[in-house]
C-alpha cells in the first residue's frame, strides 16, 4: 500500500525578531554584564548562531538581587494583592497575544517541535500566569494559616528542556505570593526568558520585581549562594540539586527542588492497547525525551509483551524526526552537543551491557544535534540504562508477571517523580497508584500538566511541589 507523504509545512520565522546581542535584565532595564563575557546561543537544529548573550558574574547577580530586594521592600511587598493580581493577569494576556512568536522562538532556541511549543508549552505558560494571578489577592485562603507572608527575594534556576514553561512555573507563584525574583535561565535556552523581560516592560511591571540573569553554572551558583536570597527554587539534575542542598545548609533559605526521574510506565495485559501505544510514545518521545518525568522505563506484562513491542515499533516507524519548525515534526533536535554526547554514551553502555538496541530507519539532518527514537529490549534492572536518567528519546523495556512485581520494579530506584499505569481495571489503577512511590501518577494517560495540578517528586526527585495551591505554599512563609 502506498503511503501519503507529508509535504513540508514550516512555520514562519518572520514573526520573531531576534537581536544580535542581549544584556541582563536588571531593575527593569537591559544592562551590560560588568565583566562582559558574552556567549552564543545556537539553534540546535542547525547550529546557527541565534544571538549573543551576556554571562552574569557575581557582581551582576549581586546587582540583580539588590534590585529585587529594593522592589520587594518598596513596591511589590507593600502592594495590595489585588494590584499584584492585575499585573499577573496583564502578563498572562501579553503571553497569549505573543503566543505565536514565543512558540517559534522557543522552538528555534530549544529545538523542540513547533507542534509542542505552540500547543503545549506556551498555552500552559499563559495558563500558569492566569492561575496564580487569581491567588495573589486570596493568600489568606490558601490554607497555610491566617498570616501567610512572602519569603522576600527568590533566586530561581531553571533548565533548558521547557525554558518558558519552567519560567512560568517559577515566576508566577513567586510573584503572586508577593516575592520578587531573580531568575537564571539555562545557558543554552535564554531567549524566551529575555522575551519575557520585554513582556514585563510591556506590562509596566515595577522595576526590580523580575530580574533575569543569563549565564551558566557559575551564575546559578552565585545566585543560589547569595546571602540576600531568601528562597531558592531549582529545577534540573539531581546532582546539581544535591549541590544546592549542600550549599544552602546552615542558612535560613527556603528551598524547593524539582530533580530527575526514571519513571516506570506500567502496561498490564488488559490495557487499552491503542491508547497505551500512544501513551508510551508520548511518555518517552515528547520533547525528545528531555523530560524529567518521561516514562523512560517501560514495564510490560509478559503476556502482552510481543504485541506491545510489535505495535510500538510499528508506531515508532511513523515518527518524523527533523526541522523543529515543521508543523509535521514529532521529534526535534537534541538541545546541545553536550547532551547528545551524553545520550550517545549511555546508549552505547546499554549495548555494551547486553541490551538490544532498535531504532526505526530514519534519516537525520546533516547539521544540528539529532538522535533517533530508540528502544532497548532485554533490559535488566541492573543495567545503567534502567537506573540512570538518559534525558533523551531512549526507552528501556522490562517485563513483569504480577502487579506486585510491577510495583517492586517500579519503586526500585532512588527517584520518585512520576509513573504511568495502563489497565482497564479501575480497582487495579487505584491499588497501583497507592503502591507507587512517585509524586505524579498518570493512569491511562501520560505527561499531562496543568497549573492547578501539583507536580513534584518523592525521594531523590526533590522536594516541594509546583502547581496548584501547594505550589503557592512553597513561596509563603507560614
Amino acid at each position, binding site marked *: 500500500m502506498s503511503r501519503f507523504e507529508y509535504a513540508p509545512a514550516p512555520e514562519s520565522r518572520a514573526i520573531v525578531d531576534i537581536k544580535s546581542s542581549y544584556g541582563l535584565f536588571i531593575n527593569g532595564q537591559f544592562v551590560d554584564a560588568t565583566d562582559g563575557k558574552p556567549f552564543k546561543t545556537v539553534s540546535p537544529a542547525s547550529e546557527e548562531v541565534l544571538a549573543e548573550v551576556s554571562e552574569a558574574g557575581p557582581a551582576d547577580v549581586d546587582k540583580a538581587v539588590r534590585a529585587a530586594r529594593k522592589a520587594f521592600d518598596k513596591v511589590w511587598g507593600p502592594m495590595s494583592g489585588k494590584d499584584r493580581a492585575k499585573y499577573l493577569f496583564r502578563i498572562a494576556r501579553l503571553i497569549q497575544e505573543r503566543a505565536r512568536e514565543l512558540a517559534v522562538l522557543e522552538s528555534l532556541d530549544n529545538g523542540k517541535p513547533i507542534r509542542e511549543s505552540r500547543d503545549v508549552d506556551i498555552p500552559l505558560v499563559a495558563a500558569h500566569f492566569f492561575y496564580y494571578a487569581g491567588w495573589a489577592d486570596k493568600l489568606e485562603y490558601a*490554607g497555610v*494559616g491566617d498570616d501567610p507572608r512572602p519569603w522576600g527575594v527568590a533566586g530561581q534556576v531553571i533548565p533548558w528542556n521547557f525554558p518558558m514553561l519552567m519560567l512560568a512555573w517559577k515566576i508566577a507563584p513567586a510573584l503572586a505570593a508577593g516575592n520578587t525574583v531573580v531568575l537564571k535561565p539555562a545557558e543554552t535556552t535564554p531567549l524566551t526568558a529575555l522575551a519575557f523581560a520585554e513582556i514585563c516592560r510591556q506590562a509596566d511591571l515595577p522595576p526590580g520585581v523580575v530580574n533575569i540573569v543569563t549565564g551558566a553554572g557559575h551564575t546559578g551558583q552565585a545566585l543560589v549562594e547569595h546571602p540576600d536570597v531568601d528562597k531558592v527554587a531549582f529545577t534540573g539534575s539531581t546532582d546539581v540539586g544535591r549541590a544546592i542542598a549542600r550549599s544552602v*545548609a546552615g542558612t535560613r533559605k527556603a528551598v524547593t527542588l524539582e530533580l530527575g526521574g526514571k519513571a516506570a510506565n506500567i502496561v498490564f495485559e488488559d490495557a487499552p492497547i491503542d491508547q497505551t501505544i500512544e501513551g508510551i510514545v508520548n511518555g518517552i518521545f515528547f520533547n525528545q525525551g528531555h523530560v524529567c518525568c518521561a516514562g523512560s522505563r517501560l514495564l510490560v506484562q509478559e503476556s502482552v509483551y510481543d504485541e506491545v513491542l510489535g505495535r510500538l515499533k510499528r508506531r515508532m516507524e511513523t515518527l518524523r524526526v527533523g526541522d523543529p519548525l515543521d508543523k509535521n515534526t514529532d521529534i526535534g533536535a537534541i538541545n546541545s552537543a553536550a547532551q547528545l554526547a551524553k545520550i550517545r554514551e549511555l546508549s552505547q553502555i546499554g549495548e555494551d551491557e547486553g541490551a538490544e538496541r532498535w531504532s526505526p530507519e530514519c534519516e537525520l539532518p546533516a547539521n544540528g544535534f539529532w538522535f533517533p527514537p530508540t528502544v532497548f529490549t532485554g533490559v535488566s534492572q541492573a543495567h545503567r540504562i534502567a537506573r540512570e536518567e538518559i534525558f533523551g528519546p531512549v526507552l528501556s523495556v522490562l517485563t513483569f508477571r504480577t502487579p506486585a512485581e510491577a510495583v517492586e520494579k517500579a519503586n526500585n530506584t532512588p527517584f520518585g517523580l512520576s509513573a504511568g499505569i495502563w489497565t482497564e481495571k479501575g480497582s487495579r489503577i487505584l491499588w497501583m497508584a497507592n503502591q507507587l512511590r512517585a509524586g*505524579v501518577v498518570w493512569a491511562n494517560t501520560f505527561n499531562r500538566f496543568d497549573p*492547578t495540578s501539583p507536580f513534584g517528586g518523592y*525521594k531523590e526527585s526533590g*522536594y516541594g511541589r509546583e502547581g496548584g495551591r501547594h505550589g503557592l505554599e512553597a513561596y509563603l512563609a507560614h
Partner: protein
Amino acid sequence: MPTNETPRLEVRKTYKLYVGGAFPRSESGRSYVVNNAKGKFLANASQASRKDARDAVVAARMAFGGWHARTAYNRGQVLYRIAEVMEGRHQQFSTEVAAGEGISIGKARAVVDASIDRWVWYAGWADKLAQVVGSSNPVAGPYFDFSLPEATGVVAVLAPQDSSLLGLTSVIAPAIVSGNTVVAVSSYERPLPAVTLGEVMATSDVPGGVVNILTGSASEIGPWLASHQDVNAIDLCGVASEDEARDLEIAAAGNLKRVRRPADEDWTADQGLSRLTQYLELKTVWHPIGV
C-alpha cells in the same frame, strides 16, 4: 511478727533502648550516667552507637510498609491508645520529668498532662490530613485529577534537649500520625522519660519498629542518621550548635532528605500544621474521563 519492719528496698529499673519493638541494651555495651538536675545519680542509660542507629533504621524501614498501609482511622486509634496508656503511667512520667528537668512535681504533672493532650490532638489528625492537605484539581481537560498526602518514609528525629517529654512527644507524634516511622535520639541529659515512652509504645498497639528510641548523644549518632541513605527525612530540633546543624544538613543532602532545621520552639504552644506537612509527600493521580 516483727514490729519494726525495715522499709522495702525498691527494685530499680534498667533503662534500655527501644528498637524494633524490643528493649536491647546498646550493642556497644556502653552506658552513661544520668543525673538529676541537682547532679544526683538517677540511673545508667544505654549509650546508643552507630550500629544501634543503623539497626533502628532497618527496623523503621521494615515497619514502614505495614504502618503506612494502615487506615487513617486505625492510626488515629493507636495514637489515642498511646495517650491512654500514658495516662496510666502519669506518676512515673511526672517523677522522671521532675527529676530530669529540675522542676516541681506539680509543674512536671502539667508537662505530662500537656504531653498526653498532644497525643490526643495529633491522634485526631490522622483521618483529617487528607481532606485538609489533599485536593481535587480542576484541570483544563477531561481528566479526574486528585492529590493526596502520603508519608515520606523513615524520619530521623534528634529530639529536643531541654523538653524531655513534651518536646519528644511533639516531634514524634506528627511524624507517625501520617504513616511515617521514626528513629528518635532522646535528650542526652534527660533520657528517662524517653525510655518510659518507649515502654508505652510497646504496650499501645504501636507495631514494633514504628517508633524507635535511642538514648545517647545526638552529636555522635546524628551524623550517621543524617547521611544514612535509607532515611527520608531528618528533624534537627535537638541540635544546639549552628555548625553541627550545618554539617548535618550537608550530610542530609546526600539523598536529598527532607530537613527540618532547628529553631527556638515553644513546646507548650499550639503546633499548627507545619510539623505534620513536613513529613508528607503529595501524590497526584490523573485519569481520563470518558464513556
